[in-house]
Each structure stands twice: as C-alpha cells, then as structure tokens.
C-alpha cells in the first residue's frame, strides 16, 4: 500500500499541534529551518530524493520490518541524556497526547501502539512500520474493516502480559476524545471514522459501547463507519495502544504515570515543571519491536526552562552536562551563525505550511483578481525579515498548499503569482489589477499584537506595501499573542485576512484538503465553500489509495489557480541543537521532532 488518502468530512481537528502553541501565528516563535541540502524545492513521493525532502517520510510504509530492529553501526549502550526545552509538556496521557512533543516522546520510548514510525537511515526519512501489530493491518476492499494481529510476548512494566482486553480498553478510551469528554485535547479520529462514533467513550458513558471492535484470538478487528484508508497512520498514535485496568480510575493521575510497554518507563513526572525522568523498562523485549532502539539508560527531560537564548548558548558552549544534552526546540535566530558553524545543528523539514488566508465570504474578496492582486502586492521579504523569520534557516518560501515531500506534490512547483513566494511585491502591477477589477481601496483588515515591537514592524510593512498597491490596509491591534490566537481562529472576528499555519498529522493529501479547503473543514480559514472542490475531495478520497497522490497534486494546482483563497507564505522546518556526545540524532519529518529511538551517547 502506497500513500493513502482518507476523508474528514465532519471536519474534526485534524492537525497535530505544534509543540509551541504560538508557533502558527507568531512567526518569531517558529525558528524553523529549510531543507539543509541547499534549498531544492523539488519533490516527489519516490523517497529517493535524499535528506532535504520533507513530509514524504511517512509515505514510505514497510509492513515487513523485522524485529528486533537492526542495530545502528557504532552505537553504544548506556549513559543519560538530558533533553532541554522551553515549551513544556502538555497531557502525557497516551489517549490524549496530541502535541508533536508528547506524541513523539510517548511513541518512541514509552507507550507502544498498533504501528509506529521508524527512522530509515538509507532513505534518510521516517517510515511507517508495525509495532504491537505484526503488520500494518489488513483491510477489506473499501477500507471499512481493519484487522490487526497483535504480537505475543508484549508485557506491561510490572511484567504482566498485555491482554487483548487491554488492547480493546485502550482503543475504546479514544472515544472519550471530545471537548466535554475525559480527554478534551485528544485526536478525534476514532469518533470520526470508527463505527459508533456517537458513543461518548468509556469514561463519560461507561454503560455504552461503540460495538465496533471484535477480538478473535490475537486478531483485533475494527469496524469503520466510512472508508478509512489512513488507519495505519492513526494506529501510530499512542491512543491506539493498550490501557491497563487501573487506567480506568483517575485519568489525571494515570496521565502523570502512564504504564509502559516500551523500552522506558516513567520514573517521575511533574506536569507543573515539565520534568520527566525515563528509566529502562526491563520487561520490554526488543525481539517484539521492529522500530525502537534503546541505547541510553536514562532520559531526563527538563523542557520548561525559561530563556531560549540561554538554552542555545548552553548547548553551543558544550561544557559538562551540555555535552550529553539535546533540545528539540528550534534555535533562536540570534544563535544561527554559531549553531551552523558548530556542526551540531540538526536540520530538516517539518510538515507545515503557513498561509495568509483571505476570508472568501467577505464581498471584498469575491473577485479572484482582487485576491491575486493581494498576492502580487505582498511584501514577503521585508515582512519576514522584520518579524525575525530567517529564510533558508527558518522557512522555505511557499507557492503551493502541499509542503515539500507530500506524496503527489507537483514538481517542479507551480506558482500562480509568479514571484516564487519571495520579493517585496509588485505594487504597480497590483494597482493595475485592482483598477481593472474596479476595486481600488479594497479594505484589508488583519490583526497584529500591539505589545510586540516586531509584530508592529511587520504591521507597518504590510500597511506600507498595501497602501502603495491601492489597497486600504486596516490593521487591528490586539493586546497580546493569546488574544491574537483567539481572534484569528474566531470566524466572526472583524478581519478578512488571517495568518495561520497547518501541519498534517500524517503525510497524505487527505490530511490537507479536507480540513483546510473543504466547506466543512475544521481549519478552513479562507472559508472556501465550492461544491465542485468538495466533490473532488470526496471523489479522490474514495479512490484506491495508491492512485490518490497525483490527484491531490492536481487539486492543489486547481485550488490555487482557480480560487487563490490563500497566499502561501512559507513551509516550516526544524533546526535543533545537540551536545557533542549525542549521536544518531535525526529529524523526524513526520512530527518535526528528534528521532528519539535512534539516539545514543558516545561514551
């Protein structure tokens, strides 16, 4: 099975959240990186593009990965790794974990699930491999029934066997992932796709059931309410793993000490300070696990430290403990030069595109020529510079919806406006376009954080560029970044231009077009509502999985050419620092996190 697609017509939250909540709107907070290979923007799903291609990793699936995972050349056992960061840790309950950092930590080290991502060193990308299941699942013709065979010999951290009851209990718990449920922040795929999605889950409605899971020996079969070809990807979330009986008690308490099936278990976790210590789980059997290595003896997470600049400096100075420390925060722009010359900067793509969404419901954006005029007038370079976004390190200029490496992404990239997503805009041409459309002085209303001087600079640049191009820019001040986030996501906010990003949960066009561009999409901030596009999305999702990718690419082009609802701003990337004794640190481009499972300490 190649890259697969799926549908998300209900438009539930489909995006894995960035580890920093601010990241999507506050560009200063996303010190992300471009492909380190040298800015090649080309891509394909073939996976032979080498390092610099992002997002495609998960498109590679390997149902036959052998267990145990082949050892890494030269890797040494032992040692303690310190992980430092500034963004803290949200819920570590496996059912609820939905941030890139919590998901990655749990999945790579603590809680096993049906499938998992594994670093493929030859392809320099992540691939989806089996985990608790012996393969990536068997499905019926229309993807409405999935069967996973669970391995023997899986044990809890106390040595007891993981039973099929535990598996069913864990999967059913994910029905409590909804706003009023036990896990309001969890991903809602189970409720969306599994049969009986209206069930409120075992915590909220203990007497109910989805009647969607059946067990036959070691086989677990899940019935779907609609085709779900992406089930193997959803299977990689910690929520798709077992839960012990005691997890049914106090969920908050269990979230601070989730039982381990993986190579490490919680020794201590303080959610208040985000200090987490992981030690070896002796009952983990590598012979049942095709993906994980567990070289270090201990992991010590201290990821709610104050000043990111100090963190960078400590890692760059590389003294004492810092030699065996690493961070998954992106480096600060101010550390860039030093970090690049240190040789200890890990770079790579992450699966997000940041857009300027034009609110197509508003009459002023009705005419596509006016929308394109905005794209033509847009001053990319000055804005990015002023707001501290370093192109090449922090971001790659975008012209399309799908980020580099998404299966089916058109190559070479097309560009509706013709400026490559860079430059300072063409006010004369934009003014002419506005004049031709009879839309001079079109109001452009957008938010800016008045308490942040760099945001004010950015606002001034937008105002200047748009005024020159014949628009009527009307910035609206908000007192802080939180308020900006809140208002940006409010469909009734008095603005017609929004700056937001989208990150896919797994590498498939379905993870982009349904939520962002279908009329029911949960993150459709351009409020695009075109029956033809909705129909196309549904049509592509009902296609055979391996035929979908090129259609997603075509749809990308069609939306941008015929509707232009967004100005693509940039694709994100990672730039993370490691100490000099940390080895095997790669960029997990599916989550934009380190490949925890392959990291080891040079003794």
């Amino acid at each position, binding site marked *: 099975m190649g890259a697969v697609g799926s549908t998300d017509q209900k438009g539930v939250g489909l995006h894995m959240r960035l580890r920093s909540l601010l990241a999507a709107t506050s560009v200063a907070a996303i010190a992300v990186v471009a492909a380190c290979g040298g800015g090649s923007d080309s891509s394909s799903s073939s996976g032979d593009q080498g390092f610099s291609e992002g997002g495609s990793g998960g498109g590679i699936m390997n149902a036959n990965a052998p267990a145990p995972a082949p050892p890494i050349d030269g890797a040494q056992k032992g040692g303690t790794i310190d992980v430092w960061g500034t963004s803290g840790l949200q819920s570590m309950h496996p059912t609820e974990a939905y941030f890139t950092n919590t998901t990655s930590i749990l999945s790579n080290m603590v809680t096993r699930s049906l499938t998992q991502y594994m670093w493929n060193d030859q392809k320099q990308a992540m691939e989806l491999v089996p985990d608790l299941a012996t393969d990536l699942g068997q499905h019926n013709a229309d993807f409405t029934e999935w069967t996973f065979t669970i391995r023997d010999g899986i044990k809890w951290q106390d040595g007891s066997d993981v039973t099929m009851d535990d598996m069913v209990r864990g999967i059913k718990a994910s029905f409590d992932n909804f706003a009023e449920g036990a896990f309001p922040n969890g991903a809602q795929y189970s409720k969306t796709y599994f049969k009986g999605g209206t069930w409120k889950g075992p915590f909220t409605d203990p007497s109910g059931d989805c009647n969607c899971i059946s067990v036959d020996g070691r086989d677990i079969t899940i019935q779907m309410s609609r085709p779900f070809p992406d089930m193997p990807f959803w299977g990689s979330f910690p929520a798709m793993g077992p839960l012990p009986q005691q997890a049914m008690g106090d969920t908050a308490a269990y979230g601070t000490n989730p039982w381990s099936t993986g190579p490490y278990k919680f020794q201590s976790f303080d959610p208040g300070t985000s200090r987490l210590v992981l030690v070896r789980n002796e009952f983990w059997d590598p012979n049942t696990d095709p993906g994980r290595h567990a070289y270090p003896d201990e992991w010590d997470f201290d990821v709610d430290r104050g000043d990111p*600049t100090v963190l960078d400096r400590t890692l760059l100075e590389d003294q004492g403990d810092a030699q065996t420390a690493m961070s998954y925060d992106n480096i*600060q*722009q*101010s550390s860039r*030069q030093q970090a690049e010359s240190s040789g200890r900067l890990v770079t790579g793509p992450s699966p997000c595109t940041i857009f300027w969404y034009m609110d197509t419901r508003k009459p002023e954006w009705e005419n596509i020529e006016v929308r394109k005029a905005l794209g033509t007038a847009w001053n990319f*370079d*000055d804005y990015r*510079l*002023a*707001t*501290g976004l*370093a*192109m*090449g390190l922090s971001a790659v200029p975008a012209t399309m919806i799908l980020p580099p490496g998404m299966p089916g992404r058109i190559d070479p990239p097309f560009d509706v406006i013709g400026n490559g997503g860079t430059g*300072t805009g063409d006010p004369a041409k934009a003014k002419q376009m506005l004049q031709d459309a009879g839309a001079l002085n079109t109001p452009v209303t957008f938010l800016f954080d*008045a*308490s*942040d*001087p*760099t945001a*004010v*600079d950015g*606002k*001034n*640049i937008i*105002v*200047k560029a748009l005024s020159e191009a014949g628009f009527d820019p*009307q*910035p*609206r*001040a*908000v*007192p*802080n970044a939180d*308020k900006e986030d809140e208002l940006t996501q409010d469909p009734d906010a*008095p603005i017609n231009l929004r700056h937001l990003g989208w990150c896919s949960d797994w590498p498939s066009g379905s993870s982009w077009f349904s939520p962002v561009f279908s009329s029911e999409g949960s993150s459709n901030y351009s409020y695009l509502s075109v029956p033809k596009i909705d129909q196309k999305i549904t049509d592509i999702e009902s296609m055979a999985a391996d035929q979908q990718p090129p259609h997603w690419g075509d749809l990308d082009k069609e939306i941008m050419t015929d509707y232009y609802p967004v100005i693509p701003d940039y694709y994100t990337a990672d730039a993370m620092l490691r100490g000099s004794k940390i080895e095997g640190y790669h960029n997990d481009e599916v989550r934009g996190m380190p490949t925890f499972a392959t990291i080891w300490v040079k003794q």
Partner: protein
Amino acid sequence: MSLPPLEAEEALHHADELPETVSEDAIHGRSPMQIAFERLRHDKVAILSAAVILFFVLVAIFAPLICKAFGVELRAYPGSEIIDINTTFGKVGPPDHGFTWDHPLGVERGTGNDLLAEWVYGCRTSLMVASIATILSTVIGILIGLVAGFSHGWLDRVLTFFVDLFLSFPFILGALTLAPIIYSHWAGDASKLGVAQFWALIGVLTIFTWMPLARLIRGEVFSLREREFIQAARVIGVPTRRILFKELLPNLIAPIVIFFSLSLPALVTAEAGLAFLGIGLTERPSWGQTINKAVPYFDQFPLWLWAPVLGVMALVLALNLLGDAIRDAFDPKTRR
C-alpha cells in the same frame, strides 16, 4: 495701613525664613529662587548636568533636522534592500561592516530601520513623555496638596484618602491593566492607537506620580498656615484663593522644584521600562523599545543596545545630579 498686605508679608516671611540673607550691608531681600540660582551657578556638577540635559533637549527638539543632516530617514522600511538575508544584519555598517556615514549607528536587524533616527526620535519620545507627565503630576500634586493642607476637616480627609488610595495601587499592575483596554478601544485605527497610547502612557505615569508631592505640600501648608503672615492675611480678609496661590505657593517653590527635578529622571526610566515590557509605546520610536529588541543580539551587535542604554543613562544621571544640586541649593541648611 497703606502698605499693600502682600509686600508686607513677603518682607516679613523672607526675613523670617532666611535670616542669613539679611545683613547690615545688603538690606534688600532675595527670594529663595534667587539664592538657589546663585548657588547653582557656582556648582560645576550642576552646570555640566544642565549642559548634558540641554544637549538632549536640543536633540529632541531638532530630531527631524538632525536626521536630515545625517541623511537618515525614520522607519523607511527598506528592509530587504539594506539587510543581508543570511545574517539578517545590515549590508553596511556595524556589526558586520565598518562605520558608514550613511548609518552612523548602523541599522536595525531585520527591519533595516536606521538606528540613529530611532535614537534621536527615541530621545524625543522619552523627554516628551517624561516632561509632560512630570508637569501634569506636579500641577495635580500642588493643587491637591494646597487644598488638602489648607482646608480643615472633611475635605482634607477625603483628599488624604485619595492620596493613600493611589499610593497603595501598584504602578506596574495599573499599566499592565490599562494597556489592553487602550488596545481594544482603539483597535481598529492604528494612527489613533498611537496617539491613544501616547496619552495613556502619560496618564498612567501622571496618576502614579503626583501623590508624594501632594503629601509634601500638604505637610508644608500645615505648618505655614499657622504662621503670622497667613494669620494676618486671613484677618484682613484676603480671599482663600489668593492666600493659597499668592501667600502659600511662593513658599513652596523649593519642594516643588525638587520634586520636579527628581521625578523627571524617574519617569524617563519608567517610560523606557514600560516600553521594554511591551506595554509602553509601540507606534513610535522609544529607547525602551530599542533596548527590548537589541537585548537578544547583544553578542553580535552590542552598539544596538549601547546607544539607547547610554542615552537613558546619561540623561537620567544628568537629571538626577541636577536634581540633587537643586535640592542642595534650596536647602537653607547646606552651606558652601
């Protein structure tokens, strides 16, 4: 009774206040102001401080001319033209290149704003905010102090209560609370927002500065109102307003001048501090804002931070020293 009461009283209380100025040779009286100025003229520190302050005042007043003379423009936003996209610092000038007259202090990282223009206009903002707020708080302090001190009974108690109330209210908290209200009220109009920010900042600074002066004046008035010249004025039926402003006020010049000269530097610092916290002015250049932006890049581009820091330091130090000198000059107990 042909002598106008005012002159009589002045002579009376001058003699009373400053007996040392009345000698056999010089019978003519000198006001406390005259004496103070006489003393200041001979104080080298005071003269030097005054010169420094004058420099900053001139810079503030002639900011546009200075920018023109150096050929720099405030917030021209040529970002991409002048910024090296790899380093995000300027293509010319510090930190990566040598000194250039085009941008004597270099350009800001990212935006390419000329830092000399930012500095000069930042000086203007600092001085404007600080002096307007100081003048306002002085006026308020004087009025409330005079009225409270001179009135007996309930009015004094009410005013004293307000003084205590404002004194007990935390300044930073007030500023933090007010900023979002300002932003949401003027959210839609960025140009009005700038004006609103400016006056709101002055308002906040004023509201939290006038109380010490009011207390000081009230205390002074307490002792003065029992003095003979006031008693005399009352007996002969001088109106209260006239007593307050013509009889009492001239005797309060010293504390007022001292308060004024010491709260100016405090407010310069407060303005910079608030801008640094992001709750001050963001729509116009300000030293605090420049400091805020420059701090993370101190390693690479120290001049960016030094310019506003030295500006604030020199101005505040000069104001403080001059304030001290003024206090000394007005203090009858100091002898030089």
